[in-house]
Every structure is written in C-alpha cells, then in structure tokens.
C-alpha cells in the first residue's frame, strides 16, 4: 500500500470521529431538553436568578443581584479577595433601574 493510503485512512477516521461527536448533541437532544425544561420549571418556581458557579462570596454567587455599585464589597479598602472576581466582569451600566438620580431623558 502507498504511504498516502494510511494517512488518508487515518484522517478519514478522525473526520468520522468528529462527525460522530458533532452528531452527539443531536442524539442527546431529547434528554437534554427534558432536563433543561425541568430545571427551568424549578428556576421559575423558586425564582432563582443565578447559577451556583462561584459560591464563595455574595457578589460572585449572585452577580446579577449584588450591589456592584459599592466599590469595596466587604469593608472600606478591601480589594477583591476571591479569584472568581476575575471571572465576573464589572458592570458597564447600572441597569434600567436608576438610584435616586435619573437622567433627564429617562424621566
């Protein structure tokens, strides 16, 4: 056999493997969607707002509800203590609700 036959066969196998892997999400979809629907119902019933990815501090556990407008979370001069703070970007806007001061345009 020619040398290229082996290499083409190996590349073909890898492509087949990738195709099988890419088909896997389609194959697993009914199970995944069922699980997500249940999880979503639970979220709606409990009114959850954040995933439990970083549980070490309140501003990483619930970044969407944390008072990120406070510059130092724990006491004056306390810089971010936990490494997860690196993963939680600072908010660009204060959201749609305004605190005390409203811009003229929003009134």
């Amino acid at each position, binding site marked *: 056999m020619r*040398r290229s036959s082996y290499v083409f066969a190996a590349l073909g196998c890898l492509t087949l493997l990738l195709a099988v892997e890419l088909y896997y999400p389609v194959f697993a979809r009914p199970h995944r969607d069922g699980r997500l629907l*249940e999880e*979503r119902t639970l*979220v709606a019933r409990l*009114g959850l707002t954040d995933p*439990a990815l970083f549980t070490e501090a309140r501003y990483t556990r619930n970044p969407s*509800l944390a008072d990120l407008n406070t510059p130092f979370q724990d006491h004056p001069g306390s810089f971010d203590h936990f490494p997860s703070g690196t993963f*939680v970007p600072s908010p660009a806007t204060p959201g*749609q609700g305004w605190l005390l001061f409203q811009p003229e345009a929003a009134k």
Partner: protein
Amino acid sequence: MTPFLRRQRALADFTLAALARRKGKNIALIAVYSVVVFVLASAMFFAASLRFETTTVLEGAPEITVQKITLGRQDLIDGSVADEIAAIRGVTEAHPRLWGYYYDRINGANYTVMVPDDPEMMPDPGQIAIGEGIPRARGLEWAGAPVFLSRYEGDLKKFDVAKTFSRDSALMTSDLMLMNEADFRDFFDIPKGRYTDVVARVRNPNEVATIVQKGSNALPQMRFVTRADIARTYQKLFDWREGLLTALAFAGILAFVIFAAEKASGLSAEEAREIGILKAVGWNTRDVIAMKMWEGGLISLAAFLIGTVAGFAHVFFFGAPLFAPILKGWAVIYPDFPLSPHVDGLQLLTLALLTTLPYIAATVVPIWRTASADPDAVMR
C-alpha cells in the same frame, strides 16, 4: 482516477516521504499544534455549553426584582412594598421573598438559603431541602442524614433533610437550602414583615421598561433588576470567561506561532537544497508550491481534527476536568453538573479557518520565494 487526482495523489505521497525524513520534528509540530487547537476548542465548547444552559434556564427567572438600597448596600425591604409594586398597571403579581447566605463554619462553604414561594415546595418546620453540593461538602454519606447548622460557638440547630435536588439541576441548585419561613425568621433573626427583596411578574414583557420607570419614580430608593439585566450579566460573564481562557492560551499560541514561523519561513539549508534539486530535475514552481500546500494542509488538518476531537471529548464526555480548577476559585462547593451538549457551527468553522489557514499561508509564502529563484543559486 483522473490525471489530476493521480497527480495530486503522487504529490501527497512525495510530501509524506519528505515529512517522514524529518519525522521527529514533524511529529513534535503536530503535537504542539494539536494542543493549541485542543485548548481553544475546549474553551469554545465549554463556554458555548454553559451559555446555552444558563440562557435557556434563566428564561424562567423573575421578570423584575426590587431591592432596597441603604448606604449603597442591599437592605431588608418592607413587605408593603410588594403591594405598591402590585398596584402598578401591568404587574400581574408581586410578592416579597426571603433568602440569604449562610456561612458554614464547619467546612467554610457558603450556602444560599431560601424560603420558596411555592407552598408545594415549602419544607415542613424543622426540615430542609438541599442541593447536591451540601452533603458532598459536609461529607454526609448516607441518605437522610440530618444537617446541623451553627451560627456561633456553642450553637447547634438540627434540620432533617426532606429532599435533595438531583445532579440534573446542580448548575442552579448545588448550594441551595430551602427552609420553612418560620425556621428562617427564627434562625436568622429576621423580624416579621421584613423581607430580602420583592419579585414581580408582568403581563406583557414589552411593558417591563415602563413598569420599571413608574416603579423608580414612585419608589426612588429601590433598585430594579430586570430579567434582561440578568441575561446581559451572563452573556457578558461567559464572553469574558471564554476570552480569559483564550488569553491564558495566548502565551501558548504565541510560542506556537514563533515555532511555526521559524519552521515555515526560515527555510533550512536542507529544504532549500531539496527545492533546488526538484527544480533541477524538471519540477516547475507550481509543482513545488502544490507539494508545500499538501504539507501545510496535511499537518494543519491533522492537528485540527486531533485537537477538536480531543477537545469535544474533554468537555462533553469527561466534564472538562482541566478547566475545573480554574473555574472553582476558592469556593468549597462547586456544582457537579452535566454539561449540556451544544455546538455552535459558526464558531467551529471560525476555529477551523483560524487554525488552518494561517499555517498553510506561513508554509507556502516563503517557499514561493525560494521556488521562483534559480535552482543553481538555491542549491549553492
């Protein structure tokens, strides 16, 4: 087989023979290249899966959450605020909630303690429902083991576990502890009529902005968080994290670029001689470039396939063990959750183009310069 295909096949054979002459160097190149693709593909699959699951699941999150802010901090809110919010036209329902965090002195973990709104989910007095991470963090190995909570030295309160949430919902419920309202008020010493925040449901999602505006005019000391704000926070968080992983991989990518550029552009004397000989025996510039295209194409295709196949298996079949330590941070509880298989076709195409094309270009361009030179000059 057409003459064109036969010619290409012969070129591929010749290229493979040439690659085999520098076996060690080329195997090392494919290995490093595959690792680079593997890291990028894993980060991409991981972020796409988390983003998909979070956005799907958080569609059930409350439409509007109202918090009271005192001195720049969230404060307990009066139950009557719920009635004021419910009176705004367009709000179907508003009710106060009780929830907070509990720091477990025994193992240093933080739990999210909550009183469910749904009466069906409310545990009986003295009982709690917990997420899968709490027994794991506590080392409670047998089912039905009670949980003892301590607020200060010498204090111990026993709760029976009525229910444990399954691993299927671990991403949202891993550190969750549902408690009866009376137990919650007693344990955390919360006076009657005071709550953590207020959530509201609205009839028409398009009216949320108007409702928030009316609400902030009527209750200026409150902060309104909408579901769109939550979705934005997470979109940004996952983009940021994926970017961060890519940034971590950047040093590796840079090293690879230097390695590849050195190999591709700084032609070794041996390679230059080889091209000179090929031209002297009658190959034209097109043949030499086609041969080098085969070389770049085979190496980058092999590396892309190996890296992507391994990255997919790493994330979806093995649960991304290499990323877990980075994401865990210092938290004691980290959810043990199944990653939802989800692939973004456009992202995969971008990865394929970004990893293979530059390498092929880096191989072909310097060869073209050498190949168009006089063979006699090159060989000497």
